[in-house]
């Protein structure tokens, strides 16, 4: 592929990634932020494609766009509105920003400093096999640790979700009490429109 096509793809994808990332910060609506995040992640997936890493690119889309962002949407839907108000966290914004900037500098330094040994050969056709083999053969310990960690997280999540059953019993009891009680009228239901005065009454 000639340089023109490559540059076109790279710069538009980079703009998409960084633009999306910026919009996450700018947008005040959390759902909008998630949608910008999706755009940013799609840009990253495209960048992987320009590096001939189609397996990683597709996995990026599958996991980050298809699963992680959906998970985030669920988290937003399940979070009480009060806890989503960012203005309360303004005091911690300074230190947090500092930490993020330091991490970013460190990452960039590592990235620039490392001798990546660019592959000039033809694109790998069997990346999935290579990745799988290296995971199973060379990096078996980190792989297993990751698996155990995820299993623990899964069990923990189920345990957290399970606790709701006790709440449900309490809730059902209160509902029952409400049903058996004098059944006071729900204030939301009482539609009590102001009767129009004579002046307002249309002809």
């Amino acid at each position, binding site marked *: 592929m000639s340089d*023109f096509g490559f540059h076109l793809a790279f710069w538009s994808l980079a703009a998409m990634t960084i633009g999306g990332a910026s919009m996450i910060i700018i947008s005040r609506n959390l759902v909008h932020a998630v949608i910008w995040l999706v755009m940013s992640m799609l840009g990253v997936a495209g960048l992987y494609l320009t590096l001939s890493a189609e397996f990683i690119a597709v996995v990026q889309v*599958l996991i980050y766009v*298809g699963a992680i962002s959906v998970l985030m949407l669920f988290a937003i839907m399940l979070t009480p509105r009060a806890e989503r108000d960012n203005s309360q966290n303004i005091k911690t914004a300074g230190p947090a920003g500092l930490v993020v900037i330091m991490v970013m500098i460190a990452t960039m330094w590592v990235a620039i400093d490392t001798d990546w040994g660019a592959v000039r050969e033809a694109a790998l056709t069997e990346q999935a096999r290579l990745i799988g083999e290296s995971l199973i053969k060379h990096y078996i310990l980190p792989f297993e640790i990751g698996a155990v960690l995820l299993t623990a997280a899964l069990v923990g999540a189920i345990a957290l979700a399970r606790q709701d059953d006790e709440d449900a019993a309490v809730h059902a009891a209160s509902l029952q009490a409400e049903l058996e009680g004098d059944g006071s009228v729900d204030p939301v239901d009482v539609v009590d429109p102001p009767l129009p005065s004579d002046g307002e009454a249309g002809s």
Partner: protein
Amino acid sequence: MTDLAGLSSVFGAWYDFRDLNNLQRLITEWIAEWGPDWLASIVTGVLGALGILAVVGPTLLILIWVERKVISRFQQRYGPNRVGPKGLLQPVADAVKLILKEQLAPRAADKLIFFLPPVLIFVPGILIWGVLPFGPRMSVADLNVGVLFLLAVSGTAVLVIFMAGWSSNNKYALFGAMRAVAMSISYEVPMVLALLTLVVFSGTMSINGIVEWQQQEDVIFILLFPLSAIAFFFAASAELNRTPADISEAESEIVAGYHTEYSGMRFGLFYAVELGNTLVVSGFIATFFLGGWWLWGLDQWVPSWIILLAKTAAVYFLLIWTRGTLPRLRIDQLMSFCWKALVPATLLFVVVAFVERTLILSEGWDTTVALPIMAVFNIALTLGAIMLFARVARPAPLRRPARIRMAGADIGGLRAARDVASRREEPQLQVGGD
């Protein structure tokens, strides 16, 4: 092939319609002679996209007619028969009507996000066609990771659905969107596992590779892994929002789900993509489990894409059939069916596929003998799993039969009710139960 020697000049020529790729290859080779190679790849892409659009567009119009006609025959009525011969122009008339209709948007809708989804929904809907192999070399992009690409692209559609439902500012739409999201991320798991069986067994993630494997081994995957096929079929129909799993646009509950607030052609676009997805998923089911463009040598004589379309039509008819026949399940039933039945079953078959693959590769079993044995074993295992599920996983209310008794002379209130219920004789009608 010897008797075809006289015709050999036809093979590979642009007018050899068994492989429509020939024409495209001719054009790209011609461009590559004088132009830059990026132009050639762009032209290839554009030609492929145009080819898909040219197929998909008219097919959708015909499909609307087919679906309505078939459903109406199921329902003892004629279906569309006024516009054009046999009502064939009905979809065109519908499209014109939809285009002319007023475009409404709720006042409180999130306008930008509200207007985007009908357009965005087309992106995965069209992209997914790119990896469908119509013939040995006839797919727009024969990716090495085609299976993953298919899953990744189909997974993004759920975000668009969420955008549509959330931005409409309508409770039905939001319920539909949340149901669609929950369903999608749940049913993606058995879908992935079902395909993983094939990937493990055939050793390739390329979709064309899977078809070629079936061609080489002279077997179709539905015989080898019937449970994966069933799971994939059900999961796909769940992702497609078709009965019995159409809870995200359940008409009787939440009106139209996520596209409740869309009117006119915006609704039309959702509808078109839904139909198109149904078709392409039928195509993928045909490809993965029914051998795709290959049919025991017939693909030498008949254009491969016609074979694929015929198989696709068969699967599509099955989808219409289920839609016309079955009621809808509830969301909790669908979720528990996914996580408690489909996921373990497909996982079991991943293990089975792994073991059988090892037997062939490491132990050197002869495939001509091993594959039939494995097929019989797997079919037996599938039947066993289904019967086990039917026996174990039935919810408590269904385990008792529903009984209708005749009151006879006992007419009255609670006392008579007790008298009737305590009778020893067989009830008049007894339905269900273990």
